């Protein structure tokens, strides 16, 4: 039904193939029509900005220009990779914020007979599209194999909820969108306070010690909170936690086994799609335990996850302030409890 231009980004074809495969698998059932930009190029990740400003933005802007050209009717550009998403949004945002800079970038594009009018595209991250455009009700309709009993730690990483120029997310530190999605899939969502902490980005290549410490924080807390699996929306996060977990274990003499999957893989699983189609098995830290958890169970009566203890009738101690009501979150909650 709803059409989007897709900017996959390099990793979707390599490191994060599982993400791409699962995305393709789930997009049909939820009615998400993706049209890949023809001949898109790398977004430069976080590396190019530090080398030279104008080329860095010109590199990104080429993709925007191409997308805008193909965008007949639809203005919506969707990127599944956090870094790509942020770079695209950022280029658009700064070209708008500083018209002079915008003109300069366009001057560079002109050398390739391209141009991009800032603000002419509406750039979203995949999760944002699924939650706010497609809607959790649609997701819920497709769930045939709820992830009952699977304890999932939601992990978004940095670059989607921050800097969040357009204020799309419920919070900068603890956004609830991913939790809501996982609840809809029937999973047992772990309260994971580090859900937007940094995975280290390119640190494993630059300062391993720094990177390993960051990974340790993330993995150990997920482990302490008895998560069976972490789920993420970012190829970089997945690569670091999955790929460097072994080396990190070696570094600290620990032996964590914390698989991390892309949220689209879990969606596909709940939709009853074959694990192979969803790129299961591509992870280095095996997520077989997740499959077992559902494979053996039959959807209807499954052990309900432990509910948090009710507030005692007689108030003891001092009362807590009621949580702030954010209309955005409230609507989400309603959808989930439908």
């Amino acid at each position: 039904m709803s059409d989007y231009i897709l900017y996959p980004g390099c990793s979707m074809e390599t490191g994060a193939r599982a993400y791409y495969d699962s995305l393709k698998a789930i997009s049909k059932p939820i009615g998400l029509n993706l049209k890949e930009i023809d001949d898109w190029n790398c977004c430069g990740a976080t590396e190019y900005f530090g080398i030279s400003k104008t080329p860095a933005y010109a590199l990104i802007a080429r993709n925007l220009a191409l997308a805008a050209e193909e965008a007949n009717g639809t203005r919506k550009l969707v990127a599944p990779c956090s870094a790509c998403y942020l770079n695209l949004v950022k280029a658009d945002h700064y070209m708008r914020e500083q018209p002079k800079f915008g003109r300069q970038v366009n001057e560079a594009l002109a050398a390739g007979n391209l141009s991009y009018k800032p603000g002419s595209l509406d750039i979203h991250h995949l999760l944002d599209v699924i939650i706010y455009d497609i809607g959790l009700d649609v997701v819920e309709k497709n769930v045939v194999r709820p992830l009952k009993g699977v304890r999932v730690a939601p992990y978004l990483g940095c670059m989607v909820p921050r800097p969040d120029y357009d204020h799309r997310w419920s919070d900068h530190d603890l956004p609830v969108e991913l939790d809501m999605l996982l609840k809809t899939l029937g999973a047992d969502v772990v309260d994971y306070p580090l859900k937007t902490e940094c995975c280290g980005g390119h640190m494993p290549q630059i300062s391993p010690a720094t990177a390993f410490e960051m990974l340790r924080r993330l993995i150990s807390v997920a482990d302490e909170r008895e998560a069976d699996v972490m789920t993420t929306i970012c190829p970089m996060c997945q690569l670091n936690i999955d790929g460097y977990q072994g080396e990190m274990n070696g570094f600290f003499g620990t032996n964590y086994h914390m698989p991390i999957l892309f949220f689209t893989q879990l969606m596909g699983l709940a939709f009853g799609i074959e694990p192979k189609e969803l790129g299961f098995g591509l992870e280095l830290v095996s997520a077989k335990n997740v499959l077992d958890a559902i494979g053996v169970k039959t959807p209807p009566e499954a052990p309900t996850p432990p509910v948090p203890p009710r507030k005692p009738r007689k108030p003891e101690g001092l009362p807590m302030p009621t949580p702030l009501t954010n209309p955005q979150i409230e609507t989400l909650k309603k959808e989930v409890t439908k």
Partner: protein
Amino acid sequence: MTENMIENTSSNDDQEKIGVYVCHCGTNIAGVVDVVQVAEWAAKYLKHRGVVIAREYKFMCSSLGQELIEKDIKELGLNRVIVAACSPHMHEKTFRTACANAGLNPFMCEMVSIREQVSWVHTDKVAATAKAKAMISGGVERVRHNVPLEPIVVPINPATLIVGGGIAGIQSALEIADAGFHVYLVEREPSIGGHMAQFDKTFPTLDCSACILTPKMFSAGSHPNITLLTYSEVEKVDGYVGNFTVTVRKKARKLDEEVCTGCGICQEKCPRKVIDDVFEAGLGYRKAIYTPFPQAVPNRPVLDVANCTYYEKGTCKACEIFCAPKAIRFDQQDEILTLQVGNIVLATGYQLFDARRITNYGYGRLTNVFTSLEIERLTNAAGPTNGNVVLRDGKTAPKTVGIIHCVGSRDKNFNNYCSAICCMQSLKFAHLIHERTGATIYNFYIDIRAASKDYDEFYQRVLEEGTLFVRGKVAEITDVPRMESEKGKLIIQVEDTLVGKQRRIPVDMVVLSAGLEARSDSKEVAKTFGISCSFNGWFIEKHPKLDPIATMTEGIFIAGCAQGPKDIPASVAQGAAAAARVLGRIEQKQMALEPVRASVIEEKCSGCRICNGLCPFNAITFHEDRMVTEINPALCQGCGTCVAACPAGAITGTGFSNEQIMAQIDGLLMLNVEPEPVTA
């Protein structure tokens, strides 16, 4: 009044005799503008426009300067005066009075600001002199169309309305009442006292808040000249300075205040416990029928219908059963009162910044994060813990406490202003908590702002007590430990900017010194009373320095935090100042309003009603019968929007009429200057 104005405009055929007076202002003007040349020019080139005399003088505002004008008016029979000097906001009154003294209607005198607008802002002498000439020529053309005006005189009703029963409002009420005039004190909550009643100690003297407030509350409650209207809200304000008509909704307490003795048995017997979000800041409980606190004034409970079992289930009535004097009235309805007052003081106070908005500080998520108001209640002997500072579990005393300044203040993501009281409040907490628990106290600050009498001394004292100060805005508060020592604690992550390193400081309790915000409904309140409020919702004063008490709307004054964040002494001072201003008005018995007003020439009014919607002061009324619009001169504030909008040109703005402005435009463009001087 409308009539004789029209007459004035039309009967304006007598020959204009204009005097132009150019001031040197020492060298302030003469240093840049060739005043002598300007005066000569005016005399020569504006002669045919009615200028009979043009003089320059060192200081026109001096008594000698004024005499010069007065003399000319008498001897040359001037009927128009132009003073080219400083800004009219500086000396317009001076020169208009001078004219009046010489028997000329003060409104026949206009000023041209060749100091603020010429000599002080331009350096090129030639260009400056030319501009001065143009401005004078504009002034001359304008003054030709000036008409004598009489100030509008309105009587002042001696009764006063004060909105808000906090310390500022109480102070204001007492001052006026003691002077022998009647005051209506309207308070939204069941009792007066405001935020100050919630506090334990006040900085920097640490005297007990209740001890100094309760007597004032009591005298306000018992004063023969004060009508206390608690649990009431102002719904509508009509009229204008001198005679406002105010509509007040007195919410149903569901009991007869006359019959009730305030014995308190009802709240004792009421089975329904409710979290008290207002007075106890959500830390304590009250009953469904309650007085917010023991010293409440008036000492009469209110029945909170929303939480009452009887209104939910239709049974219970415990309060009624146990009430000896039988004061409970379940069927009582809201009352609508209409008050007649001459002046209004708005002292509606502030609300605390909602700390839950800063998610990285975890208030509402992390159990032992508290707000400043909660701590006020914790430290208060009459509070939910009888003054014991304990963690959320209600038992354990904290061993280490982190107090965080500037929560929601000085932050473009929330409020970009400084809340003024947080530093001192945080220092106070540091002292009180240390005193009660002996805990180690950290203060996390950006800058310590203790700029008031004895404030910095208090800072010194708190330093002496061994409070640890960390200069840095706290980045986040987390319960996720990274090392053994952090387990089970709240970790405050901050850059110690004086060391230049990131620190993680484990504590048991965190206090968020939340800032002050304008009340969420301040914009509606401002609209109701016809005043304006700033982007942040604070009421705007008439002048930020020289008149922080009056508003742009005559007869409406502001006091306390409603005008901007301030501490108790400042609120009290402002409350008293507002009272003084009101009393001054009352003593005058009547007041003269600037006759800068719009009026309708009925013959021209087509009854199109275009102007009807334009007036924010409801000064415009439409007469269905005659199909014409009329403007109430006392309500009109003289903005002139309707004048500009009237397609028939039926509305004239005295003091700023179309003729005056059109003429001034031509004058400024020098269209009135003859190519060759007309020789006399």
